């Protein structure tokens, strides 16, 4: 137990903090490397966007921006101040919808992204792994060969293009799904059954675009893992001992292939998350991706900053959770 804590648990938790440290530091450095004075550029953009801003508002905006960019004092002081605000959970006010706090906007968008992301990861990881293992164990099955070819074709397509294709096919040419949003405009989100059904209906295409690519990727990974594990001694032994095919597949092959696939999921979460963001833009899904798009369009620097920071913390947390779950599946880590 002590070894487990020392060799596994503590390094993972340290790694979690390191990721956040590296991410936040990069986020701190980037604006300071920018050749333009971010405060003035920002004010120019807001003024040029044609919105009526009173002189007092400009002054308070300039103060807010200077504070937000943390441009007071030496670099080191700025850096610590930056951390201080973060730890207090203060991401400043949104510039486009001044003075709504960025955190409010994030809190509104996050559940949508989180829900879609979790559902798609679950479905694609489970389905992809099962199909991949079957493909390798029952080589030569026609249906599975079709899945194989499809996976190879789908796997390299960027999320954006997959989403666009689905949108064109199933919302324009054959309009069986709505082409935008998570619920019809004008509806007030509530917990009634009919609302939930609408949300599910609206989420099918966005979900599909993530799931199709995801299944392709996990399928290919699992297939190659399985074809390696098949020749492991313990599988050959189980076959010699006459165990049934299903038991060998589930308890000997998949059970062991699962371990690298969990690690693989941890390594991929950042990429999948990025994919979900861009998919949301295509479907106008009201999560963090669409919020990012709106922030870019409205020149809302503080919102982009907030989204970046939340993404870093969010993804790092998901990875940490996976790392903490992993020992439940691998006795070699658990009983060191």
């Amino acid at each position: 137990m002590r070894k487990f804590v020392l060799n596994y648990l503590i390094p993972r938790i340290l790694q979690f903090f390191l990721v956040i440290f590296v991410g936040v530091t990069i986020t701190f450095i980037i604006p300071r490397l920018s050749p333009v004075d971010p405060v003035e550029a920002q004010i120019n953009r807001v003024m040029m966007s044609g919105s009526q801003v009173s002189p007092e508002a400009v002054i308070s905006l300039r103060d807010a921006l200077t504070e937000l960019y943390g441009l007071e004092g030496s670099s080191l002081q700025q850096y610590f101040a930056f951390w201080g605000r973060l730890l207090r959970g203060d991401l400043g006010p949104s510039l486009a919808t001044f003075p709504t706090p960025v955190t409010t906007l994030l809190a509104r968008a996050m559940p949508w992204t989180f829900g879609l992301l979790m559902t798609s990861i679950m479905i694609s990881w489970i389905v992809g792994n099962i199909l991949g293992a079957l493909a390798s164990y029952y080589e030569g099955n026609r249906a599975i060969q079709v899945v194989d070819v499809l996976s190879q074709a789908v796997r390299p397509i960027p999320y954006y293009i997959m989403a666009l294709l689905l949108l064109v096919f199933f919302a324009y040419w054959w309009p069986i799904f709505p082409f935008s949003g998570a619920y019809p405009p004008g509806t007030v989100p509530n917990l009634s059954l009919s609302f939930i059904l609408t949300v599910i209906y609206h989420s099918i295409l966005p979900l599909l675009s993530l799931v199709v690519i995801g299944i392709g990727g996990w399928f290919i990974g699992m297939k190659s893992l399985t074809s390696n594990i098949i020749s492991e001694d313990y599988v050959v032994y189980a076959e010699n001992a006459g165990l049934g095919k299903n038991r060998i597949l589930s308890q000997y092959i998949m059970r062991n292939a699962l371990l690298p696939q969990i690690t693989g999921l941890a390594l991929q979460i950042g990429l999948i998350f990025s994919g979900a963001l861009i998919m949301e833009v295509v479907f106008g899904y009201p999560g963090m991706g669409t919020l990012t798009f709106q922030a870019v369009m409205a020149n809302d620097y503080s919102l982009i900053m907030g989204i970046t920071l939340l993404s870093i913390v969010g993804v790092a947390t998901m990875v940490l959770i996976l790392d903490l779950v992993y020992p439940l599946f691998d006795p070699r880590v658990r009983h060191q």
Partner: protein
Amino acid sequence: MALLHMEDVKAYYRTDAYGISRSVRAVDGVSMELYENEIYGVAGESSCGKTTLIKVISGTVKPPLRIEAGNIEYNFGAFHMDMRQIDPEEMRQNVRWKEISYVMQGSMSVLNPVRKIMRTFEDIVGTHQGIPDKKAFREQMREHVMRLGLPPDVLSLYPHQLSGGMRQRVAIALATVFNPSLIIADEPTTALDVVVQRGVLHMLKEIQAESANTVLLVTHDLAVHANVADRVGIMYAGRIVEEGPTQTIFNAPRHPYTEHLINSLPVIGDKSMKKSLGGAPPNLADPPSGCRFHPRCPLAIDICQTVNPEMVMLSDRHRAACHLVTEASQ
């Protein structure tokens, strides 16, 4: 009647990748019998076809390996089985582990790393017999491993928590749950240190003596054969070149290869240099013509290069395949 009767069996690996096809003749015309209640040792250097022979005997032939010719027949008391005819499903249910069990080479990694030892016992017994009462079954298994001199606690551990010797003993315990007619042990002691080797061999020998079944012991280590086997077969390049009772093989070998093997064994007090055999083991994808040993044989004569020597019976259970032996016996 013999437990296993094999006649002129040929098993080749055929591979085909990126336009290069090859066939490796790993077992090429092997005839042999295994009797009840004996320990039969197979010896030979690495890549002489020992492992392939085991695959043929245990019925675990899978592509690219194929049996090209020959008969493999078993007599398990009650029923007769033709290995080349039997339905794989019937074989899986009635023969595997119940009649033929297997202690694999590299037993270090034959245990599923994510399953407790007890679960592996459950998998095997559950498949062939069913487990109506889990509690009674667990008690039975505890007794089984205790009888073999293992602490029953190993059952609740994971493989990585056991030492190498312990894992090998667990593998033997697994192979004997059903008291099968034939136990195949493939290099059971190779990766173990000497003291542990002794214990494992002792365990094997005791099990055999107690249940009077047949053990096929395959190892390159002649010392193991000298200590354990009743009969020994010497393999070279996919063929059995000599076979006989252990005493005879060690005291009066007839085939030049066997002779060389025996002479290279260390003898206490002997300080002379050991002669090494020239050349390398033959490539089984392109074996030498005639007697496969002829390029390395110090006694080779002309006929050895062209004609494959026939097996000659020398005494009741002693036979060898060498032209010199053929000439001498005529």
